[in-house]
């Protein structure tokens, strides 16, 4: 099972290392990890995408909670929430492919953010699946470079 775990942590030196340590020391796999400030500057939110059976994920969450700098751990598996990932892809272009690429960018509501003679950089935001689909479609044109932020998530509603 894929779990989206949202973790509020103290915004302090060493916290990321503690969490990374925990995953490596206990042999847990993570698909992605994204960190950033929250509305409160002293707190960061980490969004972790982890896989494993219930027992492992439960252990991961308990172990995270046990870290002194972790304020709150929420598993979004039962919670309605939004997920977003952002990708920058540098795709090779030439005269013959440019318009086709533009069309794809349009359909996916992506954006061209940089143009060079033989390539463009495309920026796209979306769910993991949507980004994967997009990347697969532009891949045949030649992906020179790609970078993703990792997934961030937020629960829906007013809470």
């Amino acid at each position, binding site marked *: 099972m894929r779990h989206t775990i949202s973790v509020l942590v103290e915004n302090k030196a060493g916290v990321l290392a503690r969490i990374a*340590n925990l995953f490596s020391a206990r042999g847990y796999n993570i698909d992605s990890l994204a960190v950033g400030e929250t509305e409160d500057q002293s707190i960061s939110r980490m969004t972790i995408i982890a896989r494993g059976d219930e027992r492992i994920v439960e*252990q991961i969450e*308990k172990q995270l909670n046990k870290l002194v*700098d972790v*304020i709150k751990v929420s598993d979004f598996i039962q919670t309605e929430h939004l997920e977003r990932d952002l990708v920058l892809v540098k795709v090779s272009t030439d005269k013959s492919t440019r318009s086709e690429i533009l069309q794809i960018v349009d359909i996916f509501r992506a954006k061209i953010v940089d143009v060079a003679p033989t390539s463009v950089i495309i920026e796209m935001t979306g769910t993991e699946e949507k980004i994967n689909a997009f990347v697969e479609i532009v891949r045949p044109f030649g992906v020179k470079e790609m970078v993703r932020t990792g997934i961030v998530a937020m629960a829906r509603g007013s809470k």
Partner: protein
Amino acid sequence: MKKTGAQILMECLAKEKVEVVFGLPGGQILFTFDAMYHAPFKFILTRHEQGAAHMADGYARATGKPGVCIVTSGPGATNLVTGLATAYMDSIPMIAITGQVATSLIGNDAFQEADITGITRPVTKHNFLVKDVRDLARTVKEAFYIATSGRPGPVLIDFPSDVQKAETEFVYPTQADIRSYRPTVKGHPGQIKKAADMINKAEKPVLYIGGGVIISDAHTQILQLAEKAQLPVIWTLMGIGAFPTKHDLALGMVGMHGTYSANHATQKSDLIIAVGARFDDRVTGRVDKFAPGAKVIHIDIDPTSISKNVNVDIPIVGDAREILDELVKHVAKKTKLTVWHKQIETWKKDFPLTYKKDNQLRPQYVIEQIDEVTKGKAIITTEVGQNQMWSTQFFRYQRPRQFISSGGLGTMGFGFPAAIGAKLACPDAIVFDIAGDGSIQMNIQELATAVHNKIPVKIAILNNGYLGMVRQWQQLFYGKRYSGTVLDGNPDFVKLAESYGAVGIRVTKKSEVKAALLKAIKIDKPVILDFRVVPEENVFPFVPPGAALEELLQGVA
């Protein structure tokens, strides 16, 4: 009035009522040592920082209060690592303070710089690098709070040299308030009632207790629960002393070198009530064959211990003592002895712990005699190996904090410095380190510490000329190929003791044991007893690796 960081640290330690600090100085902690010159607590100079860590640990295990050590940066700090890992595995409260290069130099590979917060992250409950003297007092307060609350553990404070010298007003917070750290204490009342129901209905229950019972001071409640519900009691190595060994309901230690009755009772039980124990692999044996018919109630302050190795039916997170106080109220009083109790009695009678009772000097006999001559009252620390396992088997512990041993990490070299720490904590107790000839050489340098500070601990070396426990495995599983386990080149331990100004006594005959022990106890100095025991004696019972708990080998007599 402004004070320096070093002075503030001393004031903080005094506020925390620290009685003794262990350590060894160096360049990056010099300023703090200077401030310590007039400190109100005792400072014990050790001969190795590992010794300081284990002494602080032994002090903590003997008292329940946090042990404190102070060392320099770089190699001083890295020398603490084994000691921290040992304390961490056994949930021992400890505060380690390490000197660090000046903040302006951190990250520059400065002389004697080590990233000690990075290095010790996996072996401490938490650690801090203090970069601003204004954070110091609060950090120390938090460190003590974290080390001693919830599931205790070691906390390290890295203290750069410029912060030691920087000045600020000293205000010690009255309490630590950490929004991200709020250990659960009270157990869930509904869960407690369910647990009581399950206990009342069980026909073949066992009460399985670990170090958590000692940490939370819940031994009285355990005794009440066991007696009220007539629960047979088994324990882990860390739980030794939490229940009196000679009690009718006591079965002994469970696991790889557990008693026949404890292991069989576990396997055939229909309910295991675990309190402050974590189903470690040395306890469960082969885990998929562990107690197949048993439901499990698990009381522990650390949620991560629950359902980690063994599935739990009723988890109760919280402080063992508080939970047991409630639980005892809800369990039904039983008086009748059942088939289950009779079965257990038979196991206890038919398969007691034993060894060959001939005229040779056997290690088990030495331990029985230590029990005898100290009337079961001595504090026993152990090293690791056969000496440790025999110490669990042949001394009948009566109270918590009487048995001090490295359980989780199994650290050779722990017992002797831990004995020094325990003796400082309990000056009126007789303190014995039951040692192996291998282990004792791992921190033998602390004899100087013991002699210099007049700490009259007794070391009983069960000298078998081998790294005995490893040799035992080689005998049983590797065709007696004693690869790397023969201790040729052992020193003359009697002369060694004498060269440090301690006393050495050699014992080669069974008939000399008692007199030698009595003599050692009378001498008001550290004493090494060099017991030349039967070299190839083995520890039994023994559950071979990969076997189920009831598949124990009975080797003897």
